[in-house]
């Protein structure tokens, strides 16, 4: 998991290939995730992570998810959402979230991601 997270998600840009409902649900998940971090509600934030992200966070930090996730910094700013199939990215001014569509709905796979250059994976 990652150390900074965009917190406010005011703008939602829908791509031509993404149903409006999917982009809206992605933005909602991202917004709920940021709100949970603002309230210092680690349990709520962890509930919005994918299983793999939760395991990774716990393994990397050596703490329970609801404690470790609170170290993530939030970064309030506008966000643009793109949904492609079962994957989505929510890009804010300073940070980017990557989300997966799961059986429980959209869940955060990576947060606080920073660009590293064209075609280079984001550092999260």
């Amino acid at each position, binding site marked *: 998991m990652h150390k900074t997270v965009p917190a406010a998600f005011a703008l939602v840009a829908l*791509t031509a*290939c993404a149903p409006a409902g999917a982009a809206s649900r992605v933005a909602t998940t991202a917004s709920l995730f940021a709100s949970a971090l603002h309230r210092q509600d680690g349990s709520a934030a962890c509930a919005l992570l*994918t*299983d*793999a992200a939760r395991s990774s966070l716990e393994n990397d930090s050596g703490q329970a998810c609801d404690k470790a996730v609170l170290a993530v910094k939030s970064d309030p700013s506008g966000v643009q959402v*793109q949904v*492609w*199939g*079962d*994957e*989505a*990215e929510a*890009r804010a001014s300073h940070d*980017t979230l*990557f989300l*997966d*569509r*799961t*059986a429980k709905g959209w869940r955060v796979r*990576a947060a606080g*991601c920073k*660009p590293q250059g064209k*075609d*280079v*994976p*984001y550092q*999260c």
Partner: protein
Amino acid sequence: MSALRRFVRSNGLTLAFFGLFLAALFGESLTGLASFNQQQVVDGADTISYAHYLVSSAFAVDVAENWQSEYLQFFLYILGTIWLVQVGSPESKKPDQMGRESDKEQKVGRYAEPDSPRLAKVGGFPGWVYARSLGMLMGLLFVLSLLAQSVAGTAANNAERIRQLQLPQSWLGYTESPDFWNRTLQNWQSEFPAVASMVVFSIYLRERGSPESKPVGAPHSATGVEG
């Protein structure tokens, strides 16, 4: 003989290949789903259902990339055999028949026969279009399949990019990408030697009873003779 049996007997070639197509497509969908879900497990993501996979861009791009290359093959073969010949091949015209040929040879306009298609008799623009309609349709199907490949490929590639923590790219960006051209060229490269080898092998080898072959006893030098 019943009407159904007569229909099947009269259209067996089309029906057999359409049936093979459906069976192969079904097999591709099953194995494609299994492969897709294997990767989902590796990536720590949820697996998807068969119905979900059938409408996914991953399945669509895999289907479309093969369709476009097949229609390109037939489009080029139909047009190429108008002007290019291979002496000795039943797939080729005789060298003195190269080109569009005369109206008399093609039975169009005033040379049309009573049972010729109506558009072969009328001439003018409709007749001109009809005289090129097979190549046009194959070319159109190639373009549409290539377009479908590019659109589905953009979606599938963008999902993959996001999974790898990269930003998505535009349709135009995808059509300039290595993924698009690698998928395209690996299909094209397999089509052309298949055609070339069929043309050359049929000079010397025979398949008794097949119209794609010369009669078994026909000389190797015989061109444009089908058995």
